[in-house]
């Protein structure tokens, strides 16, 4: 699954740690999701969408 996490984070000048703190996960989790090594669960995907105030499909898309 592809995602726009890195771009969206850069637009807001957030570090990986900033986003991790907002999501209450580790920085390594954010890094793994950003680099496409790990696909988040549906609850975490909803939380990410909430943090960016966007729809899930605007952040994640199928390969």
């Amino acid at each position, binding site marked *: 699954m592809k995602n726009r996490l890195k771009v969206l984070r850069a637009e807001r000048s957030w570090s990986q740690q900033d986003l991790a703190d907002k999501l*209450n*996960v*580790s*920085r*390594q*989790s954010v890094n*793994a999701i950003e680099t496409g*090594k*790990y696909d988040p669960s549906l609850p975490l995907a909803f939380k990410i969408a909430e943090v960016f105030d966007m729809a899930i499909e605007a952040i994640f898309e199928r390969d």
Partner: protein
Amino acid sequence: MAQRPKGRSPFFWGSMIMLSYAVIAGLSITDAIDAPLNFILMIAPAGLMVPLFRSASRRIDQGGSIMCGKGQAQLRYTKRVMICTALYLASFGLMVFFIDQREPSEALRTVLAVPPGLAVIGIFWAVGRLIIEEQDEFVRMLIIRQSLIASGFSLSIASVWGFLEAADVVPHADAYWWPVAWFIGLAIGAVMNRVKFGSWGAV
């Protein structure tokens, strides 16, 4: 700029423990050392768990974590494993002393031999609790992956070794070496996590 953690890393102490147990296992299996000396030597690497956990706790206190994750569940895990390790060292030391020096009855030998095994079970329980309590799903996945790799590694070696032993190809290995193989498997799992996901894991 990030502050560099003081002292040796948990990886250093973990590697020393693995290396020590590998050497002792080699000496024991090849009959280079006898059983009492083997028991006594097995206590020493377990003693390295103390600087390992102090190092891990120091990293958590400095705002980081042992390997990754937010640290709270890992902190509880570290404390539990420290307690189990202390119980293991104490009960193992007691068993070696009594069996070697006093030649106790079979009933007393049984009473003395059970607590070290229970302490090792305590470490397995601590890993189980960590999986339950870890709130970060990515870290939890890494721990589960690490544990599955460790189980596959140790059970595979135990299976192959058992049949080779039955065929008189390899010398006898006491069953308490299989948990040691499981802990070595955790280290292998951490490396495999690092290769696939870029993070070591949390155990």
